[in-house]
């Protein structure tokens, strides 16, 4: 059926009025987004700090970055974080969304409870987990290391520490991503499942052939969001490990922060920032390509 668009009225308002309405937003956007964004690219070719001012150094920062073993370590750590965080941030919230979409008694309470971790500040999250894994009073530590005898190193050992921090990140984002998936699930018409069940497709088959394809647009958004969040991981590192033990949980953002506020060069930090931006764009582009939504809508 053809949709009738309301006829556009010719505006008799002055462009000056329009410009004045747009001006505050434009100024704010220019000052706080556009200028810093462009200036970051300018800084890549400079060395210095906010206090000392800057000098042009050509491609020095880029060359130094390529040779900086600590930077490559931070990239590796960030990659480990992404590899743990991204799949789990899809699988776990999706599973929970499936569970809490089922009409069972007390569901509203469960939904509220699941959202609680997402309401906590990162400082509170850090504190909770520090208590949970405390060797003297931590219930989680006691369960895993004393009752079950697993002797998990938690934040004590290199790769395990970054994996554990990533798991805390997953816990922290659980509520938010579950709600997004739940909204996606609610958008899938019940008729499709009814039709599929008549054809004999129920349970996992219905999930694979109906739910997953129709959740692709939501999945795409969540994938991009969790990947960007993982690439930019900083706050949980700041609260939980400060980059330790040793340099095991140094991530790119932590290293950028160290360079800006530890007396390093802002230009060097800007070079890292631009590289992270490029990596984010490549990954996001890759996601958009592999999760193309053609043919996945039900209309």
């Amino acid at each position, binding site marked *: 059926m053809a949709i009738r668009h309301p006829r556009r009225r010719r505006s008799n308002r002055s*462009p*000056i009025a329009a*410009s004045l309405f747009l001006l505050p937003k434009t100024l704010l956007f*220019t*000052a706080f987004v*556009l*200028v810093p964004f*462009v*200036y970051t690219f*300018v800084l890549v070719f400079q*060395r*210095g*700090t*906010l*206090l*000392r*001012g*800057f000098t042009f150094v050509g491609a020095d920062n880029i060359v*130094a970055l390529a*040779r*900086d*073993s*600590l930077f490559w370590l931070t990239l590796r750590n960030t990659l480990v974080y992404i590899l743990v965080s991204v799949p789990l941030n899809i699988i776990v919230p999706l599973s929970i969304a499936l569970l809490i979409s089922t009409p069972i008694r007390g569901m509203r309470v469960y939904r509220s409870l699941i959202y609680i971790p997402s309401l906590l500040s990162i400082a509170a999250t850090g504190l909770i987990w*520090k208590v949970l*894994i*405390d*060797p*003297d009073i931590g219930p989680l530590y006691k369960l895993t290391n004393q009752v079950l005898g697993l*002797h998990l*190193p*938690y*934040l*004590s*050992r*290199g790769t395990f*520490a970054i994996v554990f921090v990533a798991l805390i990140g997953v816990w922290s984002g659980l509520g938010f991503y579950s709600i997004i998936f739940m909204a996606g699930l609610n958008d899938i018409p019940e008729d499709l499942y009814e039709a599929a069940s008549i054809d004999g497709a129920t349970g996992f088959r219905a999930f694979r052939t109906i739910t997953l394809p129709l959740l692709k647009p939501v999945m795409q958004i969540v994938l991009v969001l969790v990947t960007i969040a993982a690439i930019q991981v900083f706050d949980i590192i700041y609260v*939980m*490990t*400060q*980059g*330790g*033990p*040793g*340099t*095991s949980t*140094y991530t790119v953002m932590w290293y950028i922060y*160290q*360079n*800006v*506020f*530890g*007396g*390093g*060069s802002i*230009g*060097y930090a800007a070079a890292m920032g631009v590289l992270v931006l490029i990596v984010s764009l490549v990954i996001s582009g890759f996601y958009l390509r592999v999760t193309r939504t053609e043919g996945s809508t039900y209309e």
Partner: protein
Amino acid sequence: MSEPLTAQGTAYSRRAFLLMAALGAATACSPVTPKQQTEEQGNDGKPVELSFWKPPGQEPKAENAYFDDLSASFASSHNNDKVKHLLLPWNDALTKYTAAFGGGTAPDLSYLVLLWLNQFSSAGALAALNDVDANLDLTGFQKNAIDSAKGKDGKLYGMPYYSSRWVLALNEKIWEKAGKPALPKTYEDLGEFAKKLTFDRSGNTVGDTGFDKANIATYGLAWPGLYEIETNYLWNYLWAYGADYVSEDGKDVGFDNAGGREALTLMRKIQESGAATPMTLYSDPLKWGEVLLTGRAGVQWIAPPTAETFKKHPDARLKVLDLPSGPSGKFVVGGVGYLCISAKTKYPETALDFIKFATSDDNVSKYLQQTLLFPVRDTISADVYAPLTDSKSKKFLTDSLPQGEFMRLTRPLPYNAEQYLAGEINNYVSGQKDLDKMIKDASKQIHTMAKNAGM
């Protein structure tokens, strides 16, 4: 094609509009060279208000109360001039200072540790005190504290306020349980001593048959791997073996030599013996602060405990140990805090008057009695702690005061080598890297950091 934007009848082309925006952005982004202000601007005799930022030297409540009183006393003796004190949390202090000095909103007065003082003074963000008062009286101040705060121009950029240093302390109960073995004189001794003070949950010590390394009740030595704690004692080991954390010119590591390797190897040996706590036993600094007092560890580098700490642990008996020595002598990491004036303050003379007031012997003594920190002026003797009523903390302080002669200040570098190097050394000591690789990585990184800091 879109029409040119118009405002008040004037037509601006898109190019002109973009040019204006670009010029505006360029103006906003252009670096501003701090202009040094060393002459007081007139305020027509009216009282002035100065801002003063400082991370706490004690509990925030007591710290605020102290500086409120100090400010009131200053006002009553100085034309009602006010000093508004703002307490900065240690965790965020450097970030806030950097943003404020860089953004032109620095406080008139600030308390800076040596590393920060050097970063800000070398960038021209601090006023030279000699420029404000050419006849500044520095009588009695410790020479190294004064020399370290001088810039390349030979001028003084901060007035030493007080010093802090950690002490190697022993839990006497654990020592008695171990049969009072001979106290350590060297770092080699310390490793062996720690073994004797280590007990598993069955009461076995290191070397006993059946000693269970996975179930330790008491560790001989507490070894926190947290940067903010560890940098209070880590360099003692290197210095005692004739090494340093950075080289003389500040562009390389200072431990790629025989002494440095020997010190690092010894640290790893102690860590691997099972007599030291795992560096990551706790991720909370407060938990580490309790380890010695609760008897979880026998020996630990600690800041002098307050009366409140002893009240909380009434059974704890602590003994100050002599500083262990190495082939090159004995040293203890010292931190000196300075009161500094922003290069942009309008009232440098009033600011300096406040600094002189705050650093007077009487006022510093009051502060030290509350904070249990150490003086940086020879005119303040051990008697400063005489009014303390808690006998335990008084004895601890009095016993540790003589160790001030071995205090060595950390290097005034324009970049933060300490946090990175502490982490890298931990990588080796905890067995995550071998020595050569750690030194190679650290050397490359320090070179990069120094270059980035303009060295």
